[in-house]
């Protein structure tokens, strides 16, 4: 069985991989096949890829400068010449603002997705593995954070730190990590009493190695699923902070702030608030669909086939 005589697909699906690289790639490829069979998840993935593409190529795609004001041309309806999605109260092109706003949305999502789950993973696994006093202290701190309504806590943080997109991200992250810590701790508690952890302890492995190499890989999949499902909530929280004037500041084309501006004349000029609303809806839905699909792929309980 030489490599030349096999197609790439056969090589990846081989029951007897011959190298570390092949085994790893095969595992990824099988996950991809499962994900691809889920049409809804693929639709979600397509929207997210589109969003990323739009954000990267915003300067090329946007027909106008998102900050260019033209008061003589304000509140144009949908389908106006040169402004497909109309213009807002200052005569700025809504489509261009949506396209540039994709960058801000992605920025928020990426930063929160980097901070909250990692903090949660650290706190949760350490708490679950160490047990005893460490567990009690860390979990009570988590409880305190969980006891506050999320948006109110984020509001308090932003009010203390000052309005702005970075502080909004920080505030959302600070309120978003406790559920991840809980999840990671619950997973750790079931994992740490299992035989394979005992087995590696009997090889003389220390707690650091056990947590990073043996517990994290099993926690991460459920965290990834949870993150993608939470993305919608994070985007909405960011939009909510923007809407309240505590997130992105004008004239930045953040979608929540755009809704907030359009709210004043929503009855007469409905598209000004509706278009960014639809964008938020589409992206939130996309993350939810992808999260559902990823859960099917990554859940270790289902991967035994």
């Amino acid at each position: 069985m030489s490599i030349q005589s096999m197609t790439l697909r056969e090589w990846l699906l081989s029951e007897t991989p011959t190298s570390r690289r092949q085994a790893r790639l095969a595992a990824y490829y099988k996950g991809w096949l499962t994900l691809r069979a889920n049409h809804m998840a693929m639709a979600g993935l397509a929207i997210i890829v589109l969003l990323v593409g739009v954000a990267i190529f915003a300067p090329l795609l946007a027909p106008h400068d998102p900050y260019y004001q033209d008061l003589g041309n304000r509140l144009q309806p949908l389908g106006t010449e040169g402004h497909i999605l109309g213009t807002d109260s200052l005569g700025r092109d809504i489509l261009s603002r949506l396209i540039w706003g994709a960058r801000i949305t992605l920025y928020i999502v990426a930063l929160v997705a980097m901070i909250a789950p990692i903090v949660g993973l650290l706190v949760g696994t350490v708490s679950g593995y160490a047990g005893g006093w460490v567990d009690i202290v860390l979990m009570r701190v988590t409880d305190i954070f969980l006891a506050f309504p999320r948006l109110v806590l984020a509001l308090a943080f932003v009010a203390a730190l000052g309005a702005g997109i970075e502080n909004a991200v920080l505030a959302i992250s600070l309120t978003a990590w406790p559920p991840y810590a809980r999840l990671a701790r619950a997973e750790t508690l079931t994992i740490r009493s299992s035989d394979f952890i005992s087995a590696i302890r009997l090889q003389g492995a220390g707690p650091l190695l056990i947590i990073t190499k043996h517990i994290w890989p099993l926690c991460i999949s459920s965290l990834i699923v949870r993150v993608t499902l939470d993305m919608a909530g994070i985007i909405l929280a960011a939009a909510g902070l923007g809407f309240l004037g505590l997130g992105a500041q004008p004239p930045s084309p953040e979608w929540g702030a755009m809704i907030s501006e359009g709210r004043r004349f929503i009855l007469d000029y409905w598209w000004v608030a509706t278009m960014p609303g639809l964008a938020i809806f589409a992206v939130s839905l996309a993350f939810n669909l992808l999260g559902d699909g990823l859960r099917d792929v990554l859940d270790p309980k289902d991967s035994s086939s």
Partner: protein
Amino acid sequence: MSTAIDIKGLNVYFGDSHNLFHAVKSATFAVESGASFGLVGESGSGKSTILKAITGLAPYWEGEMTVAGQPLGAKRDRAFYKTVQMVFQDPYASLHPRQSVDQVLSETLRLHGFKDINDRVDQLLKDVGLGPAFRFRYPHQLSGGQRQRVAIARALAPNPKILLLDEPTSALDVSVQAEILNLLKDLQAEHDLTYVMVSHDLAVVAHMCDAAAVMRNGEIVEILSIEDMRAGKTAHDYTMQLLNASANRVATVAAD
């Protein structure tokens, strides 16, 4: 022959001070190096707990334990884990679900400070009767018997002198059980290993061991040689009950 394991007056407890469970009550036994010693009894009799106490997985114990001439304290050092290794009961639970056979064995070898990891992984797989084709498989691509072979390979990785076997075949099909037991016998001869084997199956113990301790409710009620066990010469009623319960199977093993 020197003594591989010497245990005197071992008590093991579970739980905290309010709700203490006395799992093993003053157990005393010794195992010669190169011998196979069985621990038999019904479930909950404390036989696996003794293994846990030896390996340091059961933290609350008192008494004297001496392994390969070294008295055991509260902590086990790396040298201990190079001498003593354990094979767990359930091969479906004892392998990390996200690690390939190669990862499991390489990591173990790295922890024990070996350098020529590639060759050793191949050698270990050959030792337990798995070819190189299995090296990059994940546990879900292996059968129960193959998984247990991988678990045995992992236990053999540091070249231990003593192997603790916690019901190594009870989770497996009957046909596979015999294969694994024979593999363990061959490995013992090859690597000059000392076995302590926990089982509820007297037939398995009669097949594998030279002597056995019978346990009930955390106490060792009797230690007897396998010849006596096969001949039905026991001093204790409970042992007699156990023997009667599996009499025909012990006899068939004896006839082999």
